[in-house]
């Protein structure tokens, strides 16, 4: 393992632990209605750290990256549909 690889894994680990602590802290900070959105935003950042640093999606070939984009697009469609359903009840 090169020094650069060690550093990137270490930085990613520290970032994940810090973000986890931030999530926990903000959950007890009485943010009101934005609490869930903030928690999900932090989770998305953590997931991105795992995907980019550990799963190396940035270095993957075009095919896997297209799979990632398509998957996220379908999730986006699901969210749109859910929002429409919930708001029109």
């Amino acid at each position, binding site marked *: 393992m090169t020094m650069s690889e060690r550093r990137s894994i270490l930085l990613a680990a520290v970032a994940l632990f810090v973000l986890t602590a931030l999530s926990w802290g903000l959950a007890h900070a009485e943010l009101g209605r934005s609490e869930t959105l903030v*928690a999900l935003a932090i989770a998305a950042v953590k997931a991105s750290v795992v995907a980019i640093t550990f799963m190396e999606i940035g270095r993957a070939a075009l095919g896997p990256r297209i799979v990632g984009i398509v998957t996220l697009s379908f999730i986006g469609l699901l969210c749109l549909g859910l929002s429409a359903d919930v708001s029109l009840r």
Partner: protein
Amino acid sequence: MTPEDIYRDRATRDHALRFGMWIFLGSETLLFAGLFGLYTAYRAQYPAEFSAAIQHNTEWIGSINTLVLITSSVFVAIAVHAIRGDNRRLCLGALGAAMTLGLVFLGLKAFEYAQHFAEGIAPGHHYTSLELPSLGANRFFTIYYAMTALHALHVIAGLAILAWLARRVARRRTTAAHHVGLELGGLYWHLVDIVWIFLWPLLYLTA
């Protein structure tokens, strides 16, 4: 027909394997996305009941399990980088640590389930909790069991995969020159971690 008959060289085969794994991971993500969607719909319908149920959930177990899975993901990443550098010992040690943490996760989950069952918190029609008797709380814990049990099944499968990969590393069948299997197993484990990253706040924190 052998892989050598299908692919012109190992690099092409490895590319196909990685692509196939990413497609599988995409399908697994959509599987969980459906459950997250169901959670969202129920939460919109029973906001107060979900809030009460989340507050009742065992936050310390969920939080420790989050740290456990993140750390195991770190070890899997170390294992992959170690085998690339031909460091078999470090790779095996890291895989061992990752698997141990996976077992810790499952142990805590089992303890948590046992606690819930003792309180009458069970899925669907078996729900008999007197502390949270509402239909909304029942819905929360039913979707909680569906999501966490499905996730736990993925952890169990991941542990089996890591164990098999560790055996291959130990027998020198996975090496610095040929380790795409370890990379793919690592990808699967990281997805299991990502799913929990989103489960944790929704099931334990955001009351």
